[in-house]
């Protein structure tokens, strides 16, 4: 179970800015620790952003996405009270899902 996904949605008229912070090491498999041991590759492979249960963004990522990556997206027609949920799955099979109600 990964760390909490932080989701923020800000309605500006018809448009909504959505920011998503996925807390994850996003290890490339190329870095070494203090003892010279290679750190195993470990990164988020897929994620989904849903609006009221319907998929609106599907993402696939590589190791080259930064550690604890912050994403920003835009959507049209999202209303107060709508539900936005985000889930990810990483290369180790770990999963995490979180949701917010737009306020």
């Amino acid at each position, binding site marked *: 179970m990964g760390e909490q996904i932080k989701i923020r949605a800000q309605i500006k008229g018809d448009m909504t800015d959505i920011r998503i912070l996925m807390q994850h090491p996003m290890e490339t498999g190329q870095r*070494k620790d203090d003892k010279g041991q290679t750190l195993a590759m470990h990164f988020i492979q897929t994620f989904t952003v849903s609006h009221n249960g319907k998929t609106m963004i599907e993402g696939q990522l590589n190791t080259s*996405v930064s550690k604890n990556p912050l994403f920003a997206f835009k959507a049209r027609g999202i209303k107060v009270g709508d539900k936005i949920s985000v*889930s*990810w799955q990483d290369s180790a099979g770990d999963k995490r899902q979180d949701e917010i109600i737009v306020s």
Partner: protein
Amino acid sequence: MFELRRKLLKGGSVAALLSPLLGTGLLVPTSVLAADWNRPAFGTRNIGDALKAYGNANTASESPDIVISAPEIAENGAKVEIEITSNIENTRSLAIFADKNPMPLSAILEFSGPALPYARVQLKLAETTRVRAVVKTLDGKTHVAFREIKVTLGGCGG
């Protein structure tokens, strides 16, 4: 099996018939099914092959309607923020490549419903490189835009 599921679900009337299968794990509600990770395209180690593996992105036409905004010089390659807007109608997906990264394809994003074809992402860049955004439209056309980013300190090793 997905092919079959789609066919089965086309006729709404059979939905009731299939509902007992939901509990067996044979049929999973679409919302929890993330897209399959495109292993061939992500694992490819040079830009030419990565573009081909992603689906003919090597023949994409350059478009001024894809706007990439990113720093000209990134001091730290571990976190470089790149913002991409597609002003191309019917944009279905956006893929981001960093030509000189060990594995050039960084992210694929697919948009539907209320989502607009816009994304801000944070990438690791190994060295000074050209970044390209490849847009695919609903009618199957492919477009591309480029942006050069200078990297002072690479973000992949360490």
